[in-house]
């Protein structure tokens, strides 16, 4: 049965019927959900998030043709493994931004450019997205980042250095900042 299912996923992709491919991937923080469209990585689910609920959301917002197809996520898994290993500082994966729009998209695109090992504040993100006073909205844009880790919203902190929030939980945010040498330990 497993061979049949692999063959089905491959044929679906070849015939353009695989709108959303997904796979689970291991990380030092727990299991991640990775989902991509033919355009690129569209969603990363963090270990404390409900993968089934994320898949239902993708079925509603992108396409119900959602299939488990690990082969389509090989490159994403490879880059993430290297990142967690401290051997990759900049992701090269193509991204599909279709789950965001407006000011949130503007903020998230700028987050994507914060270099490894550096941090910014919510205020700085609001300013660089064109509205310095929209600090709260910038915080919301971080919280709704559909592609965490690859779009490194863990590098955005409160003015004064407090961690702020994180969709994957604060211990994970701290762990990531430690991995990047921002925090000691």
């Amino acid at each position, binding site marked *: 049965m497993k061979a*049949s*299912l692999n063959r*089905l996923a491959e044929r679906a992709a070849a015939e353009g*019927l695989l709108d959303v491919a997904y796979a689970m991937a291991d990380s030092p923080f727990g299991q991640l959900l990775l989902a991509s469209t033919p355009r690129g990585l569209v969603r990363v689910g963090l270990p404390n998030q409900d993968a089934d609920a994320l*898949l*239902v959301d993708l079925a509603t917002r992108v396409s119900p*043709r959602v*299939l488990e197809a690990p082969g389509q996520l090989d490159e994403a898994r490879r880059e993430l493994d290297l990142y967690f290993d401290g051997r990759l500082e900049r992701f090269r994966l193509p991204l599909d931004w279709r789950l965001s729009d407006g000011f949130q998209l503007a903020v998230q695109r700028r987050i994507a450019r914060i270099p490894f090992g550096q941090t910014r504040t919510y205020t700085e993100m609001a300013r660089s997205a064109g509205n310095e006073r929209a600090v709260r909205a910038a915080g919301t844009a971080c919280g709704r980042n559909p592609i965490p880790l690859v779009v490194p919203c863990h590098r955005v902190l409160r003015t004064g250095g407090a961690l702020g929030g994180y969709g994957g939980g604060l211990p994970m945010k701290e762990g990531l900042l430690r991995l990047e040498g921002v925090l000691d330990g």
Partner: protein
Amino acid sequence: MTELPPFQTLIDEHAGDVMAVCRGTVGRADADDCFQETFLSALRAYPELDEAGNLRGWLITIAHRKAVDHHRAKGRRPVPVAEVAEVAVEDPEPGDGIWTAVGALPPKQRAAVTLRYAGDLPHSEIAAALGCSPEAARRSLHEGIKRLRKELA
């Protein structure tokens, strides 16, 4: 628009039943082709489906249609004499006896038995898949079972 669940849920829940229907109708050797065609066809039509009520019945009905297509294509296919294998390619597996007997039934009876017992469809849906009345479906099923009893006795 209906909210359709991720297609993977259909696979997780019903792949086993679809495979059973394919085995029952086209035999073990061609079952995987029937299985692939069924799910690809379902995947193609899925986003436009306007009712998510009975996805299992929908899949089983597609599997039956693919099996009919398969038999039609096979009937027309010329026999490549030079390539005829000298030994049976299909090794019967343990527990397969009943499905071998089902495979030997006349087409309508075979379809009715497979859809009822591998597909677990009610008479009304078997009738819809076969394009006949529920009474005719019930009759085909009854005849098929009678014959199986005799064969396997």
